[in-house]
């Protein structure tokens, strides 16, 4: 292995179809995990926000899940669902996203200015209407921050699913290790980093799209006041 170059471009060019398939598979596993994670986290957050007492147990359970080593969890699920099972992979992947997503959704909603919430109540919003129309839009920055961390983490974790027989970049790393072939290892790791970065940037773009009100406000027309905190 020591004798071989870090990255053999010939091999890469010969296996473009395989790389493309692995990329799609990696993306599929990531997107399913993040989307399901967001849906489940939203539901659990809604429960936690409505009945505050459930927040601590929900946070505790998702926290425990988060501490389980991924390799151990994947291999534990394989006997139940079989090798190469998407279900097994997704159960673990979704489980890992929950803690960060729920924390950020709850913190985002809790972080809404109490005056804004009071105004919404005073205007005659119902509880759920207020959540959907006022609190969630204002929590978008915190929620997207959570999704970014969850997505980037998931891209990394999906490489581990290669070890339980799923495609994606993990299968390159797995094969590279077995064959003592650095190119496959570098390719699997490198592409995984690139995918994480691209998804992260895309989510930043999404946040900007969803929060036009946060874009550098122009100076007030009259009665100028310091814009501290806005310009920073």
């Amino acid at each position, binding site marked *: 292995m020591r004798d071989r170059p870090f990255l053999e471009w010939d091999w890469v060019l010969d296996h473009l179809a395989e790389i493309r398939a692995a990329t799609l598979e990696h993306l599929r596993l990531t997107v399913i995990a993040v989307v399901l994670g967001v849906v489940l986290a939203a539901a659990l957050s809604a429960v936690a926000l409505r009945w505050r007492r459930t927040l601590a147990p929900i946070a505790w359970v998702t926290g425990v899940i988060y501490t389980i080593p991924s390799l151990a969890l994947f291999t534990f699920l394989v006997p139940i669902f079989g090798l190469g099972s998407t279900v097994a992979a997704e159960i673990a992947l979704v489980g890992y996203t929950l803690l960060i997503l729920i924390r950020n959704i709850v913190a985002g909603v809790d972080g809404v*200015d109490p*005056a*804004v919430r*009071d*105004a*919404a*109540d*005073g*205007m*005659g*919003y*119902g509880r759920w209407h207020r959540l959907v129309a*006022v609190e969630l*839009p*204002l929590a978008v920055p915190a929620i997207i921050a959570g999704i970014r961390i969850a997505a980037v983490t998931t891209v990394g974790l999906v490489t581990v699913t290669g070890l339980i027989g799923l495609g994606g970049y993990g299968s390159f790393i797995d094969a590279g290790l077995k064959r003592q072939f650095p190119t496959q290892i570098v390719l699997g790791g490198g592409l995984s980093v690139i995918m994480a970065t691209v998804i992260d940037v895309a989510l930043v773009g999404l946040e900007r799209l969803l*929060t*036009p*009100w*946060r874009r550098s*406000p*122009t*100076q*007030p*027309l*009259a*009665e*100028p*006041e310091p814009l501290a905190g*806005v310009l920073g």
Partner: protein
Amino acid sequence: MGRLRAIETRPSGATGGGLLGRPGLPAPTGADRGAPITAGDVAIRLDHVEKRFPGSGRAAVEDLSLDIPAGQLVALVGPSGCGKTTTLRMINRLIEPSGGRIEVDGVDVRSLAEHELRRGIGYVIQQAGLFPHRTIADNIATVPKLLRWDRARIRARVDELVELVGLDEELLGRYPAALSGGQQQRVGVARALAADPPVLLMDEPYSAVDPIVRAHLQDELLALQRRLHKTVVLVTHDIDEAIKLADQVAILDVGGVLEQYGPPAELLRAPASPFVESFLGRERALRRMALLTVADAHPQRGAVVDATAPVDEVRQVMQAHRTDWVGVLDGQRMRGWIDEASLAGARTAGAAGPRPFAAWVQPETALREALDTIVQSATRVAVVLRDGDLYEGMVTIDDIARAMER
């Protein structure tokens, strides 16, 4: 006796609305001041209202009964812990009373669904509480949208409100963060008025803006109220704000104890308790003078002659009033003043070259300003003119003192 000096006294109309007290509303007169409010006029009635927060030994509001007359601005004032904000929030049920009954327009607030009740009551809070993620236009349109007005109607109403509260139309497409505190507060008022509710609740609306902007916003509220005649309940800890803005002031002590309830001038004239007296602070007479107007001082006819009066008559009038000058009238119009020196060579008062009065006020000028004018005038008299030159009479320090006794 000195001659009339030209002094720096501007007509009160040029100084802006702030010092004018409350023009447009009937000036309080001796007879109806503090009179009980008749039942038909009540917009909001608090009947033995009580609020205890769980886990707190003392009641936030013990037993408060208060009738808020329709179309008036009522200020709830008191130290912190007096339950003024709690009381306000019980009206739109942001806080549920523990006991008693609250009626808005004769309807028990508990008989309506919370959101229905609140959509029918305007609500303005400190720091405006605008929705940061919505444009100014969308913020103003909040309640009409909740009420499912159609788009054209909402648009028309937003345009109307922008004009009403004096906002720049250019701001409509912006987000609240781009606005100054004063502008945000104007948007807050426009949002509260959007569905044209008869009742407006304002919770310390101006405590977060600097004093200059606050004074502006207060003047704007007075001007707005003169046009709209809403029933406004305003919570403030600032007694001067209450005196400036309110038709009726309710002074509350800790536990929602109603210490006194009446027009500001009445409170200043006769505080009901040592608590009220200390809460009102110093210079009560001077502050009351800011509320009463020249008309309350009953201007007297004074030393005046008609422009056609012969010189002999002019001298007689001067003697009768023990002055060395007289005002010259052209029918109802005041042409100015003349003195002995101007009479030389003239046959009538009008021919003596009347010069305009420097010390003049309007019937709606606050007594405090009139007093200022009078003490700066060499003659110790202010001429009262309506619409520029229509003569209403003259006021002296004695007239003002008598008005204060009434």
